[in-house]
């Protein structure tokens, strides 16, 4: 067994034999010609034929992957007709009195170099487009037909690199996955692989000899190519593949559907995220908003307090990616258990109940205000909710609102545009549950953090393994508390969500919906299973 790593372009699992894709050997001979007009005419005929081929590829791609995937061939046709490109080829033929194939090859090299020397990764990747059209043109000039991959059973296709036209020409029913040595995630091949939903890895340094014909697994989730897997590994992946297929089926079935029970109650199904890296999964799983964006990572990955600008950039990215859907950001929630050097937090015997979260923010308002300014500024780009953690009193909420209002007014006075912002609090202490009636008068929404609420209510340290056997997340005390919070909130038109682990517990979904919960916020991969459960509920 041999495991290699690569970069995932499209996730998924494939199991099968590897077939090595060999490019036509691109050796272009250079020879002198005497009759320039005939050579130019030959070039012209070849250009027409190449253009016809590209048009056919465009149509093939259009029917298989749609317009966004097919567009590239339209651009290729324009490149082929580009005046500078043609001038260069014509000049080399006429000036050096050489054959058209050679003139095309030299021109392709020069143009490709121009792009590979550019800084921007996206433009760099365009060098491949030039090589692709030029190789096709040369092959037409040589009178060769495009190579066709013919194999009886579906295979994992391994190649040095694949051009867009090679990719689209492949018979998709015969391809389980792509693995290439080179290529970038911006290449059109990568884009096509994504559109075609085929697992694909790039940058895998495989050995040709060892690879061709070998049994292998492509793990697009972890970015691994496993050659000659042992029995145990194979079994593991077969199971994983089944799960993935089940997930894909669910995706197809549930994506784009409204999360509403049979009796017509609508539940907002939001996602928890820890950073911008989670956004693709959020979008892919069709979350209806973000119910908990843990802003801690902004602080954890730095050696100093993140600036307003740094924070603003991140919030803006998330808000824009969600395109008008609600994004709830939780303000800084750290304590002595998550040590951040520059915060200078003293070591505590009981950090879970210590100097943490909103307590730090109210004690050091300059940190709090920086975050709030960044949040309010980002609100101009979409729909934002700000949520405050570890609340135990109405007084705290009043202080928070005062600070938030002064930040908002300050920005307004500076002429900075601000959108509408919902304010909410986490309900994660027994105190907050008991006074939820009063808290509801102060805020737009509640989000119940069941993990901490359970720990504080049952007086069980979550980290203490010896207590695992009595730690019961379904404890009636917790369920009664949730019910109390929902009832109190609704009295004051405050909506309630759950953002703790309990929110993703399918055995409780019906209970929560019946209690009147308005929103559930869970990890992206729980969104669709939850939607299915809710849709099938009375």
């Amino acid at each position: 067994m041999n495991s290699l790593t690569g970069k995932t372009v499209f996730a998924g699992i494939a199991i099968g034999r590897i077939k090595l894709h060999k490019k036509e050997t691109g050796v272009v001979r250079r020879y002198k010609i005497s009759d320039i007009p005939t050579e130019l005419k030959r070039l012209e005929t070849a250009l027409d034929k190449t253009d016809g081929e590209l048009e056919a590829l465009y149509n093939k791609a259009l029917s298989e992957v749609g317009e966004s995937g097919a567009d590239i061939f339209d651009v290729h046709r324009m490149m082929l007709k580009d005046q500078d490109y043609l001038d260069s080829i014509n000049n080399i033929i006429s000036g050096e009195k050489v054959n058209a194939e050679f003139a095309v090859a030299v021109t392709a090299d020069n143009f490709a170099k121009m792009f590979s020397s550019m800084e921007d990764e996206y433009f760099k990747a365009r060098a491949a487009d030039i090589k692709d059209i030029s190789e096709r043109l040369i092959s037409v000039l040589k009178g060769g037909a495009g190579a066709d991959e013919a194999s009886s059973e579906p295979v994992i296709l391994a190649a040095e690199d694949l051009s867009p036209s090679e990719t689209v020409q492949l018979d998709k029913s015969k391809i389980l996955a792509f693995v290439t040595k080179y290529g970038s995630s911006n290449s059109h091949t990568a884009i096509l692989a994504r559109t075609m939903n085929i697992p694909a890895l790039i940058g895998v340094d495989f050995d040709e000899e060892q690879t061709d014909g070998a049994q292998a697994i492509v793990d697009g989730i972890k970015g691994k190519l496993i050659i000659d897997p042992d029995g145990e590994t194979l079994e593991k992946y077969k199971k994983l593949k089944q799960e993935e297929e089940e997930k894909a089926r669910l995706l197809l079935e549930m994506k784009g559907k409204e999360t509403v029970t049979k009796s017509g109650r609508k539940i907002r199904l939001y996602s928890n995220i820890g950073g911008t890296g989670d956004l693709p999964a959020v979008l892919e799983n069709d979350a209806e908003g973000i119910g908990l964006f843990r802003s801690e990572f902004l602080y954890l990955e730095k050696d100093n307090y993140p600036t307003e600008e740094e924070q603003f950039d991140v919030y803006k990215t998330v808000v824009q990616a969600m395109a008008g859907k609600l994004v709830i950001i939780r303000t800084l929630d750290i304590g002595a258990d998550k040590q951040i050097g520059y915060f200078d937090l003293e070591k505590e015997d009981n950090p879970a109940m210590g100097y943490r979260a909103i307590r730090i923010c109210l004690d050091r308002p300059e940190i709090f205000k920086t975050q709030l300014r960044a949040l309010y500024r980002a609100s101009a780009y979409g729909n934002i909710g700000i949520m405050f953690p570890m609340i135990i009193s109405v007084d705290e909420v009043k202080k928070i609102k005062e600070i938030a209002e002064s930040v908002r007014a300050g920005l307004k006075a500076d002429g900075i545009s601000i959108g509408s912002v919902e304010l909410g609090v986490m309900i994660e202490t027994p105190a907050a549950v008991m006074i939820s009636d009063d808290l509801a008068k102060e805020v737009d929404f509640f989000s119940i953090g069941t993990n901490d609420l359970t720990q504080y209510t049952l007086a069980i340290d979550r980290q203490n393994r010896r207590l695992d056997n009595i730690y019961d997340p379904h404890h009636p005390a917790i369920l009664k508390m949730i019910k109390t919070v929902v009832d109190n909130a609704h009295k004051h038109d405050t909506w309630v969500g759950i953002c703790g682990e309990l929110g993703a517990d399918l055995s409780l979904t019906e209970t929560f919906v019946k209690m009147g919960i308005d929103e559930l916020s869970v990890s992206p991969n729980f969104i669709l299973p939850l939607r299915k459960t809710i849709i099938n509920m009375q």
Partner: protein
Amino acid sequence: MVSFEFTVQDPNGLHARPAGLLIKEAMKCKSKVTLKKGEKTADAKRLFNVMAMGIKGGEIITAEVEGETETKDAETLKAFIEDNI
């Protein structure tokens, strides 16, 4: 000569596809169309020429339109760019 400025909206910049769209539209104009970004200039009817400028998302580009129908061409182009680029 008529000129106008525009900002490239596509975050990936004026790469192959949007550049292609722009060139197609410029080809329809009788006027000569030149794009300028700082020192760099490109003939808007030539794809590689435009792509070689490496225009990134958010950059401000000046378009200069010159010819008998420049006023009309500039208007058409400007409207097209605002909708598509």
